[in-house]
């Protein structure tokens, strides 16, 4: 009996510390990543250049949706990597979030345009429906469903660790 209790007294702290040790050292844990599968909300929004109207029906197939704004400094940091993805024929749709049209166009002219098209969500109505809390955020859309939602800057490491496993699993973007 005494041995049993002694064993428990020794085991409890060991389990406790190993639990936290494993939890803290979990390298694959990305707090910004959300892998729940959610239907893409329906929308109808003007594009940034005001001559076309886009709806959710224009997003058939697979796309990255990148939420950005000219006031967002991290978006500037992220921009180079998006350009690289776009060079690899990955279709990216820009969602311009709560931004002045002029500022956004100037930004695109200055730094380049990695987007297939850009929708202008001035009030952030669509973004709220998609669960956007700020910029930048990136979504992976596949057949009308959001399958990855990443809050924060996407760079090479995030792309390889968060997006690539899902892209390979679902067999997306292998048309090149």
């Amino acid at each position, binding site marked *: *009996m005494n041995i049993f209790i002694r064993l*428990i007294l020794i085991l409890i702290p060991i389990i406790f510390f190993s639990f936290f040790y494993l939890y803290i050292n979990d390298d694959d844990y990305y707090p910004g990543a*959300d892998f729940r599968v959610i239907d893409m909300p329906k929308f109808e929004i003007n594009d940034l250049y005001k001559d076309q109207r886009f709806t959710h029906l224009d997003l058939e197939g697979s796309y990255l949706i990148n939420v950005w704004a000219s006031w967002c400094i991290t978006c500037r940091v992220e921009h180079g990597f998006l350009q690289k993805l776009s060079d690899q024929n990955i279709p990216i749709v820009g969602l311009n979030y709560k931004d002045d049209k002029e500022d956004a166009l100037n930004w695109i002219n200055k730094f380049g345009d990695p987007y297939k098209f850009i929708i202008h969500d001035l009030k*952030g109505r669509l973004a*709220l*429906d998609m*669960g956007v*809390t*700020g910029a930048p955020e990136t979504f992976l859309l596949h057949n009308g469903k959001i399958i990855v939602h990443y809050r924060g800057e996407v760079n090479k490491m995030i792309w390889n660790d968060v997006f690539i496993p899902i892209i390979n699993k679902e067999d997306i973007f292998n048309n090149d």
Partner: protein
Amino acid sequence: MIKNSFYLLLIVSSMIHANSLYEFESLEDEKRFYSLIKEVRCPKCTSGSLASSNAPVSEDIKQKIIELIKEGKTDREIKDFLSFRFGNDVLYNPGFNESTYFLWITPVVFLTLCLLVFLFRRKS
């Protein structure tokens, strides 16, 4: 006399423009709104409720909550709507689901074990 009425006008004129920040159809709705925003975390804050936050996204969510209240949604439906979009951690009171059952059950199991060991020892 003119001077006094001028002062009076100054004092009263500010009240003409006084208005509540959010418009509600009934007092009941207003109460529901103010209790809801205390129970929902602002997704952009480390740990602050919507009520404590002026972040743009919090303002948007507050407007959305008002809209949903006007549409006649229940508190449960509004909370589900928000946790569906912003994740379970926007709710301060964690529900009982597959990611939290461990959290809820462990203390009960632990206390039961303690009690069992205690009773067992007393007998021997």
